[in-house]
């Protein structure tokens, strides 16, 4: 029987207007189309958010977080007015105040510091996407104490990459998804490149390219990988160097590439007793020397038309011996300690698997080389008819970086890529403009502490050697509150935000007066030892004064950290303010185009809140900071939008590269009052394509160099020789050996000698060596859930339904030992603390590794969630087990739980044991008193969009 179907409207009206801006539900910064439609109250309301198809990052797709933007924008935890603390720190008792009062108070606190001792302001900006501005502001203020979250996030990736080849996995490069023939991904759950990685993986899958996931846990990307390497945490370095061992042994390395683009031929002084032992032999101009294969002469590497040798000891004019760094390298990695059999037990990877993977990698690189028919000229002036690619690509993130051996492990992976000749070659790992940007094109770190004086240069940078450390005249005491660029962490290019509160509390190296933070939930998921940090923040001295006297904090939502502030500056949501995603900062470029973007108020705030950057501009003017006021002392910028348009870092170079001058210039050009309007017209971003000839080998490509200069990405050509052998590390070793100045404290010498090897090495993660194996036999990790962003997704009515609780996933065998079944409760115990958690059995995981989702657990009452919300009763943080300090070594010192080279927080070094929790009650522990939230509040139940549905 046939029958007519009911008539339904298949062409309903969707929205009144589409406004295109940039997502900020995470740091990936995708382009979004925000559909607006009139709500009940006649005001525009968000109907729908979709990905912007034209956008270079997400090409139209949108992740779960981005799609939940509506619920973030209307979150009950949104702050609505400046707050002044009335209760004790941590309680969350505030009185709302007017902006003028708030800004006057802040100006008073900060002004005092600036005219006396600027360093008593510690300004740390967490998950900041405007670091080029906030850093510049702090520079004008004159405090040496500025950094964002990089130090506890992924500085090992940034530093390891920049120091080695002038790029980095960490947003500064990407695999050549369209051409690679073999892809290996290390320690990634989500990464900042959330959507691009997924888009890329699907490309590989559709091309049938092999994907190998190296990860103790087989979820997410590793679940879809064709092969899984279930490695034991903290041992990737060994695994990779064993691959290197195999490749060298079989001669599967690209010697031509090594000679042209790396310091493999550079001669290393071999003079064990001399002060220069292990440094490069250089001529009087400081140019590194090599041996010419033809003539056998010692010549400067920079000389054109030479044929540098890769082996053979030579005698230098001064009689000392020297050998090409490649010879040292080959000897090192060919030694048996890197043989697959030798590393198999430690890494948990079978010798067979290592061997086979080495062969597959070699086959991909050398048997299926890709050739791009594009002539190009290198920087030595040599013309190449084609671009020859080694189509093997790697990607790595925090599984590598968040260990105390992360810097060296990251370098090991780069070493492997470079030996294969795959960096920025077709099918390999590609630079994203403005990168490549090697160390010599990077700023050095700057300190200082002069009353009413700005800093001479940016706080953060890449030191060339011990001479650039930020130490007091005694050559020992750190200048910075986080002890960055000191002997504790010499190459801490992003600072050590995770040490600020505990150092400030210990008044080590000195006490501070104002702690000014932005966008970092430091009293909870963002800190190690969260319980301890909460204490430090609220501890008082004998006079009843807080040990950390004043805390100013800017947040948009009622987070755990808000409750610890004395003064809260409420920010807008990401849809209500101007932002610049700037080339001066962490750009959104793709390998084939320079890109930057903006945010703009696509919807007006309905609360008394202000964009934090505009507030800083205002504060800067009130404090009369140079660059923020005119001659006559009047404010230089109306607000952040005005700054974005008119600020020039260097003549012709501003926060945004697009539509400069009369709108017809890109990169360089005068400020254009119409610039933001032009961005909005273009969908919120600008994209300029790299010329064909400059698409690959950017590190040595003349066309690229010329174009980069023209675009204002760099001021002149930059030589970029990949540093397989990293001389600055050797310089630190020389200091530790007492052969160079300054000399580190005795306590640090051994560690520096052992860890600062100029060639990538592996050493066991520190926490593991500080405890007794048998007591804490297992590793415990966190992973990013794709559908939740650190702490800030839990206020989101939709996302919290997906991740409202987080079980501890424990290998079945460990469960059997401990007598644990699904949904039982267990104690997870580290040397530092214990937590009680719900259990889920799992097989697809490294047999020594427990894991859980990151930052799901919430403090009672925070985020305007009900005190009995599952996030607070069943959810938990691993952070309570992780100490910011290592187990005592008996040397009287407490070492920071960080990488000794970069200071990167070693979250994943954690070691634990498991015990069944027989204590009744199924509430996760520890439990903390409920804190009071200050958000706008939420409804009893939601029927979002009812007004538009029939």
């Amino acid at each position, binding site marked *: 029987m046939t029958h007519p179907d009911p008539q339904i409207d298949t062409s309903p009206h969707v929205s009144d207007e589409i406004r295109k801006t940039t997502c900020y539900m995470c740091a990936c910064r995708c382009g979004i189309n925000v559909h607006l439609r009139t709500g009940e109250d006649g005001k525009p309301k968000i109907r729908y958010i979709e990905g912007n198809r034209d956008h270079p990052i997400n090409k139209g797709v949108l992740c779960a977080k981005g799609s939940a933007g509506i619920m973030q924008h209307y979150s009950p935890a949104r702050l609505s007015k400046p707050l002044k603390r009335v209760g004790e720190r941590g309680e969350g008792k505030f009185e709302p105040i007017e902006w003028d009062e708030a800004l006057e108070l802040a100006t008073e606190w900060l002004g005092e510091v600036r005219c006396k001792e600027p360093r008593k302001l510690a300004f740390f900006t967490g998950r900041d996407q405007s670091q080029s501005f906030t850093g510049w502001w702090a520079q004008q203020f004159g405090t040496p104490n500025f950094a964002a979250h990089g130090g506890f996030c992924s500085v090992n990736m940034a530093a390891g990459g920049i120091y080695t080849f002038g790029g980095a996995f960490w947003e500064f490069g990407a695999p050549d998804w369209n051409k690679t023939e073999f892809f290996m991904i290390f320690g990634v759950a989500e990464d900042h490149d959330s959507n691009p990685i997924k888009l890329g993986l699907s490309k590989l899958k559709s091309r049938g390219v092999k994907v190998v996931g190296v990860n103790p846990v087989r979820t997410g990307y590793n679940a879809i990988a064709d092969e899984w390497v279930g490695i034991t945490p903290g041992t990737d370095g060994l695994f990779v160097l064993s691959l290197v061992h195999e490749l060298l042994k079989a001669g599967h390395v690209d010697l031509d590439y090594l000679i042209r683009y790396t310091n493999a031929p550079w001669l290393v002084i071999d003079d064990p007793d001399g002060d220069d032992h292990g440094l490069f032999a250089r001529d009087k101009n400081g140019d590194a020397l090599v041996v010419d294969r033809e003539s056998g002469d010692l010549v400067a590497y920079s000389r054109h038309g030479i044929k540098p040798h890769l082996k053979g000891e030579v005698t230098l004019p001064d009689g000392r011996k020297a050998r090409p760094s490649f010879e040292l390298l080959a000897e090192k990695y060919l030694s048996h300690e890197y043989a697959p059999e030798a590393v198999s037990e430690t890494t948990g990877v079978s010798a067979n698997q290592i061997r086979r993977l080495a062969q597959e990698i070699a086959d991909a690189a050398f048997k299926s080389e890709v050739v791009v028919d594009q002539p190009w000229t290198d920087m030595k002036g040599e013309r190449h008819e084609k671009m020859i690619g080694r189509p093997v690509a790697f990607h790595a993130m925090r599984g590598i970086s968040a260990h105390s051996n992360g810097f060296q492990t990251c370098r090991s992976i780069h070493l492997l890529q470079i030996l294969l000749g795959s960096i920025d070659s077709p099918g390999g790992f590609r630079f994203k403009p403005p990168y490549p940007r090697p160390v010599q094109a990077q700023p050095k770190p700057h300190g200082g502490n002069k009353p009413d004086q700005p800093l001479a240069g940016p706080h953060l940078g890449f030191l060339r050697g011990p001479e650039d450390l930020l130490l007091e005249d005694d050559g020992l005491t750190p200048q910075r509150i986080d002890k960055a660029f000191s002997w504790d962490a010499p190459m801490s290019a992003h600072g050590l935000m995770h040490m600020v509160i505990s150092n400030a509390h210990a008044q080590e190296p000195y006490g501070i007066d104002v702690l000014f933070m932005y966008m970092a939930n430091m009293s909870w998921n963002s800190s190690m030892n969260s319980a301890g940090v909460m204490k430090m923040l609220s501890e008082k001295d004998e006079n009843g004064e807080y040990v950390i006297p004043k805390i100013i904090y800017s947040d948009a939502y009622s987070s755990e950290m808000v409750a610890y502030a004395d003064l809260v500056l409420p920010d807008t949501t990401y849809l209500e303010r101007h932002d610049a995603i700037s080339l001066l900062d962490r750009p959104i470029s793709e390998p084939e185009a320079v890109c930057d973007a903006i945010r703009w108020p696509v919807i007006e705030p309905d609360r008394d809140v202000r964009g934090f950057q505009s507030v800083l501009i205002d504060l800067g003017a009130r404090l009369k900071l140079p660059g923020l006021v005119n001659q006559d002392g009047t404010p230089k910028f109306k607000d952040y939008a005005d700054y974005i348009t008119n600020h020039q870092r260097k003549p012709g170079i501003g926060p945004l590269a697009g539509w400069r001058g009369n709108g017809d210039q890109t990169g360089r050009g005068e400020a254009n009052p119409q610039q933001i309007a032009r961005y909005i017209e273009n969908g919120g971003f600008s994209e300029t394509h790299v010329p064909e000839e400059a698409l690959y080998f950017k590190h040595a490509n003349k066309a690229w160099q010329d174009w980069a200069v023209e675009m204002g990405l760099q001021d002149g050509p930059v030589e970029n020789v990949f540093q397989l052998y990293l001389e600055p590390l050797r310089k630190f070793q020389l200091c530790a050996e007492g052969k160079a100045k300054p000399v580190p404290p005795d306590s640090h010498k051994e560690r520096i000698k052992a860890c600062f090897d100029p060639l990538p090495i592996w050493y066991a993660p520190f926490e593991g060596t500080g405890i007794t194996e048998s007591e804490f036999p297992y590793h415990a990790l966190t992973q990013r859930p794709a559908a939740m962003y650190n702490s800030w997704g839990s206020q989101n009515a939709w996302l919290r339904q997906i991740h409202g*609780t*987080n079980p501890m*996933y424990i290998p079945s065998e460990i469960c059997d030992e401990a007598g644990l079944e699904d949904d039982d409760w267990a104690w997870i115990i580290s040397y530092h603390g214990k937590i009680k958690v719900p259990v889920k059995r799992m097989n697809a995981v490294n047999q020594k590794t427990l894991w859980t989702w990151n930052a799901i657990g919430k403090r009672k009452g925070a985020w305007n969630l009900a005190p009995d919300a599952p996030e607070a009763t069943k959810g938990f943080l691993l952070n309570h087990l992780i100490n910011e300090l290592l187990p005592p070594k008996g040397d009287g010192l407490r070492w920071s739980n960080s990488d000794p080279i970069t200071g990167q927080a070693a979250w994943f070094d954690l070691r634990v044991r498991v015990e069944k929790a027989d204590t009744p009650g199924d509430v996760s522990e520890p439990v903390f008193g409920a804190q009071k939230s200050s958000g706008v509040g939420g409804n009893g139940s939601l029927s979002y969009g009812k007004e538009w549905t029939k």
Partner: protein
Amino acid sequence: MHPAISVIFFTVTSGAGFGLIFLLGLGVPMPEGPTAAFLASALAIGLSVAGLVSSTFHLGHAERAWRAFSQWQSSWLSREGVLSVITLSLFGLYALIWLMTGERNGLLGFVSAAFAALTIYATAMIYAQLKTVPAWHTWLTPLCYLGFGVSSGFLLALSFGEMDRNFAVMALLINAGFWFVKDRWWRRLDSVGFSETGSDVGTATGLGKIGKVKLLEKPHSGENYLTKEMVHQIGRKHAEKLRLIAKFAGGLVPALVLIAIILFGAPGYIAVVGFFSIMVGLFAERWLFFAEAKHAVSLYY
């Protein structure tokens, strides 16, 4: 499945109501006079209607309940609605004539009896038709519904004290008989699982060929409509206890009452004790009917 009180009450009471209609329609002896006629018919209609009304309590939009009559061609739920209305009108007419004239119209009675049986059958088929719930998906289900409807109705009818012991014997046999059927139903439930369709998490996901499949993470960390409605879990022991209660109150007690009537000539109206007891038993039985039944969706959770 989630045991919703409204639905349990609906199936049990309307079952008894239509069971009584069935018997009255077949002309089982009743005391002379309008009082009995009125009481009997009122009880029959009252129980049925009470059941039907309660069934609307679990509707999201009871005000639209009338729409449920439209799909009798394809939907058992719709048929149940239509049939109960027909049955009630036919029996209403029958009762009216009975009250007015004291006459019980045989033909009309027979027809309403038939429709009463059909109605109970339709009610049962709402559940028995569901392939997704193997425990229900058997001809034993309507059999039990019919049997228990008639048994409970029978005990009520007996309570009017007008029937001789042969009827009591009949009631005894019917009730006992259907508890045996129910016992088979239970034994089937214990063994059937998803064996008849061969469904398991392997076929549900199509991943069974690769290896042993286990849910690692629920789609959402909290509960949802499906888990609340269809993934209801009940402890083995708990179920055992309730089955005993059901058999005791629903089977044994009424049996003893009937035996008392049959062997010791106890007055018929003590059957009312049996009636209340069987209602208790059937509530337990019906609660289990839902609580013990596994839905295919549970394979995904």
